[in-house]
């Protein structure tokens, strides 16, 4: 499978169909993987694929240093491919501007929370090429949001305490934001100081504001790749927050981010029959 991926990458580079292949390579310490940017056909041997290839490489589709290289091909798992759908819907990366090299993924060695158990896109949809033996998985929808349910059953004060304890460790490094393919704003709301919408200090108030606002900005947009939770150096379970909002959007608007390139994103469109009870 990896040989087929490498050979396709080589062909794309040799024919100049793309200027760079963004994929996974060996990391700097044994067992680690890292994003690699292959610009020369002879370097495709650096591309690898295994269950530790966790990064969502679609993050790089909106990084100007990468865009400067030219048209990219990007290796994507099913979850990552959803981000490409969302980026196209939001007019950030037109579909024809990228080649998606899908890899069949049975699940990561270290998923963020529940994500891999509930995966329905082991075989990534919507890609230009798919590598690996196809896996069909139909997860039970009743099991879909068990991690969110754990918190929903807490009383409001207990929920507040849960999150206060987690956010106490937040150091405002913004690793969560910077690895997220959908946090592509050149100037994040947290970086604006006229006025300072979100306090930058890593105290309880500032940390609640930051983490909740980021989750709200991702409502109906987050595709659940788990990159944020994996990137967090302080072990904050960010996916639970994002998935809570994904659950609300699914229940209220029947919308799942990244699943249908032709759909209009729920939070960016209005239908007269949209529910009003989300405003309280």
């Amino acid at each position, binding site marked *: 499978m990896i040989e087929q991926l490498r050979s396709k990458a080589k062909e794309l580079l040799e024919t100049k169909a793309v200027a760079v292949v963004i994929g996974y390579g060996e990391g700097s*310490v044994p067992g680690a993987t890292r994003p690699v940017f292959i610009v020369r056909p002879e370097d495709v041997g650096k591309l690898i694929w295994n269950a530790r290839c966790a990064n969502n490489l679609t993050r790089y589709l909106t990084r100007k240093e990468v865009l400067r290289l030219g048209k990219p091909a990007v290796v994507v798992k099913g979850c990552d491919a959803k981000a490409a759908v969302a980026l196209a819907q939001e007019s950030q990366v037109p579909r024809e501007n990228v080649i998606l090299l899908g890899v069949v993924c049975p699940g990561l060695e270290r998923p963020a929370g529940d994500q891999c158990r509930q995966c329905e896109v082991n075989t990534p949809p919507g890609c230009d090429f798919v590598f690996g033996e196809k896996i069909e998985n139909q997860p039970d929808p009743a099991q879909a949001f068990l991690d969110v349910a754990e918190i929903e059953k807490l009383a409001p004060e207990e929920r507040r305490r849960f999150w206060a304890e987690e956010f106490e*460790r937040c150091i*405002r*490094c913004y690793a969560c934001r910077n690895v997220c393919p959908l946090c592509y704003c050149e100037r994040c709301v947290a970086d604006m100081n006229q006025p300072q919408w979100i306090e930058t200090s*890593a105290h309880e108030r500032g940390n609640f504001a930051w983490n909740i606002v980021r989750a709200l900005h991702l409502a109906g947009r987050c595709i659940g790749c788990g990159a944020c939770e994996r990137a967090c150096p302080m072990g904050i379970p960010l996916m639970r927050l994002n998935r809570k909002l994904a659950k609300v959007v699914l229940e209220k608007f029947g919308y799942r981010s990244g699943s249908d390139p032709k759909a209009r994103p729920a939070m960016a469109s209005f239908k007269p029959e949209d529910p009003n009870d989300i405003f309280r």
Partner: protein
Amino acid sequence: MPDKILKKDKLDAFLQGLIGRGYRIVAPRRVKEFTVLGEVASAAEMDLTEVNTRNSIKDAFFPRTEEVLRYDVEQGTVTLRPIEIAAPKTLIFGARPCDAASLAAMDAVFGWDDRDEFYFRKRDAATIVTIACEKADDACFCASVGGSPSGAQGSDALLTPLTGGGWKFEALTDKGRRLLDEAAGAMEEGEGKAAPLAEVPKRFDLDVVKSWLDGSFENDFWKGQTLACVGCGACAFVCPNCHCFDLQDEGGYRGGARRRNWDSCSFALFTAHASGHNPRPTQDARWRQRVMHKFKYYRDRFHCASCVGCGRCIRVCPVDMNICRTIERIAVHNHEKP
């Protein structure tokens, strides 16, 4: 002269005795799959099993957010109110030699042109007991920057693990000797056999690196080093030597507080000017800054690197940038690009 030994089963007595004398104890405690340096009230709350803590000792002296002054506004007149700097007597137990060594570089910059009382009051109130390292991991590179798993620099007392359990306690400063007196009841005398310590390979020569950096600001080596870097602050914030900060006023029309918050040179807006110009407009330029600052500028000004090879940046980086590997490329492989 026989050694002073602290047995594991006497550790709690040691701590409680010091708590009784007014010390606050800061030590590694478990959080999920890592440990953090934080306040503990007993030995049972401590976890000394990891190679190192996720956060560094700098949190004790230079916290991630800190009030530096308060102000009131009344009819257009601003009144400043200084902060009562909280600097409780603290025992930092279970720091690593790399963290202790990092303090020299922090002391240098916080005492450089103006003595930073927010830093030094806490620093003066702290006693640092370091435990030598029995294990290291692939991210550790202390040996390449002048450190070692048994380095004593910066510690008030060094604990060396013994084969039978417990530690040999060596007091190195007045503060360390005071601890010995205050905790005499928990110590015993004896001859302990030191347990084997971690071996950390030397990966590069700092002088070779520095001499290349001296002439290489415009070198093409820096182009394309950082395509993977997403420009977050994880590396800078867990680093014991990174010390940049941002001043922020928080408050309303009637008053508020000015806070000092951690900042990182990897952020895109770190050097953004009000004019709109940014002298470090690309991640390449920001990575170059990080390397130059730690391994050249700091040595030029303070005669030490601002890196102790603790490896935290390598462990937390979500995209495996690995500054040690960049330095190896410069020193060992004669600056080959990735």
